[in-house]
């Protein structure tokens, strides 16, 4: 750097001009070097964790907790010896899972439910996304439909089961209807709030850069709204899965296939608590599995690309 001339300037306001040589007298490279140096100083060192370490940190604590709970449960059963039809032990539940697997009911139920949940969720995305876009962009529609949609989000979608059975009978249509009533509002609302949270500055920049209405929507607003939309999708899946289970428990028979909810209800009718608990664990397990294998990786990528890593150091 050049010597500081500000004191000289204050002391001799008129004659000190020659003290400060013009900036371009220095080689242009000097500025580049300076700038690179400052960039290097201000760079944030990478603190990326290895994926193995991340998985270990994420997986070990819940696994330990689970093992501890099962051990406590087994200990209780072994010491207190409660009636096995009221408090089955972990081994009974494991046995029930094994039995369901052996006669193929487990595979059938998981596949049927996953397929219906997946298809129902995709239909909900296909309906909820354009609906959310319309709501976000069309003010009168939003004023009219917005409160209704938020209300639908609060209404438990099980409430639709009786109506759906009367309309569609005991068919898959009933199940899908209930799933859609649960998932569509969450997905649409997620997109709306995602779009609402797009910083106005980004829209202004888009306009300044010369984007038209369509370009502004596709190149600026939608990508910016993606995190909000994604959390809507996640919630939509959770609602799909819950609604599906509710529908399967209540609506059984007819042409409705055999899902996890049906398996749960069947076990109840047989007063087989071991199977009931086993099925609950399966429903929970499928939900966690979908979250871990489908949503969590996408979300992590989405947020990391924007520097919003959850729980990260950056």
């Amino acid at each position, binding site marked *: 750097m050049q010597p500081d*001339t500000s004191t000289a300037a204050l002391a001799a306001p008129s004659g000190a001009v020659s003290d400060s040589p013009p900036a371009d007298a220095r080689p242009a490279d000097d500025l580049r070097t300076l700038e690179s140096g400052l960039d290097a100083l201000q*760079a944030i060192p990478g603190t990326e964790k290895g994926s193995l370490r991340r998985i270990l940190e994420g997986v070990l604590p819940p696994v330990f907790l689970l093992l501890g709970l099962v051990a406590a449960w087994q200990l209780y059963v072994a010491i207190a010896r409660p009636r096995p039809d009221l408090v089955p032990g972990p081994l009974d539940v494991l046995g029930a899972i094994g039995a369901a697997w052996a006669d193929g009911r487990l595979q059938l139920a998981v596949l049927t439910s996953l397929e219906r949940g997946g298809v129902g969720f995709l239909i909900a995305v296909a309906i909820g996304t354009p609906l959310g876009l319309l709501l976000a962009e069309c003010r009168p529609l939003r004023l009219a439909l917005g409160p209704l949609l938020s209300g639908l989000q609060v209404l438990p979608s099980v409430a639709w089961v009786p109506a759906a059975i009367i309309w569609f009978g005991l068919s898959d249509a009933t199940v899908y209807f209930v799933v859609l009533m649960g998932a569509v509002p969450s997905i649409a609302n997620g997109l709306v709030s995602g779009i609402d949270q797009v910083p106005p500055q*980004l829209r202004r920049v888009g306009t*300044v850069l010369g984007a038209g209405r369509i370009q502004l929507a596709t190149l600026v607003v939608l990508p910016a709204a993606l995190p909000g939309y994604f959390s809507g999708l996640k919630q939509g899946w959770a609602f799909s899965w819950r609604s599906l289970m509710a529908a399967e428990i209540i609506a059984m028979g007819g042409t409705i296939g055999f899902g996890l909810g049906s398996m749960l209800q069947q076990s109840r009718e047989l007063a087989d608590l071991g199977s009931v608990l086993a099925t609950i664990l399966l429903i929970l397990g499928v939900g966690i599995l979908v979250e871990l294998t489908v949503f969590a990786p996408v979300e992590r990528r989405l947020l990391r690309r924007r520097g919003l890593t959850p729980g990260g150091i950056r």
Partner: protein
Amino acid sequence: MTTQTDTRPDIHAARSPAIHPATPPAIRIDALGKRFGADGPLVLDDVTLSIQPGEFVCLLGASGCGKSTLLNIIAGLDRPSTGTVTVASGSAAVMFQDAALFPWLTAGRNVELALKLRGVPREKRRGKALELLDVVNLADAASKRPHELSGGMRQRVALARSLAQDRKVLLMDEPFAALDAITRDLLHEELERVWRETGRTIVFVTHNVREAARLGQRVLLMSSRPGRIANEWRLAGDEPRRIESPEVSRLSIEITEQLRREIRRNAA
């Protein structure tokens, strides 16, 4: 060193010193007034101004004097209530106080998006974006995302992005206000170099008197409520100045004195 002139801007326009007196101004503002709402307070009052092609003008004033509003009107982001604004080249590039880079795109892609919206064909965008990033000495950071860059680097990407628009006029709304002094000092040099290399017409809004005196060929002081052009200073000599130089200090003192007078008027 500096010539302080009368406060009537229209007279300046007439005897504009300018480099090429014959060429039409890059920006012409005529009797511009702005009110928000039908009977809101007058934000800008009778602003008349003409800016020559290639000129570097600093618009200086206290907070709330309407300088950002004036810039937004020139940028076409806002409409004047009365009067007219003509930008000879049609439209202008704008840089804001926050870089406002798109967080889901890398630095390079941010510049490429501006090229895309300008209509540059796909196969040329990548190379052109790298060239522009190199202008601000950031070619190496092309694949970094905004959150991985420091504030100063982000502003330089934003500068490259506004250069990508290839507009003759560049409007800057306090672009360095949020940066630390060391970075800001370097960016002054950077901006000055870019200005000399590209011949852009720059209107630079700031509330930092020294910054204005350091950068501008012409400094316009705005009064507050309503915003008017209160005075203007032309800086003679075409050499780059340093912010520590005595002429910048002297001019800063002079401008600050008048700025304070303008602020004091609002006390009563």
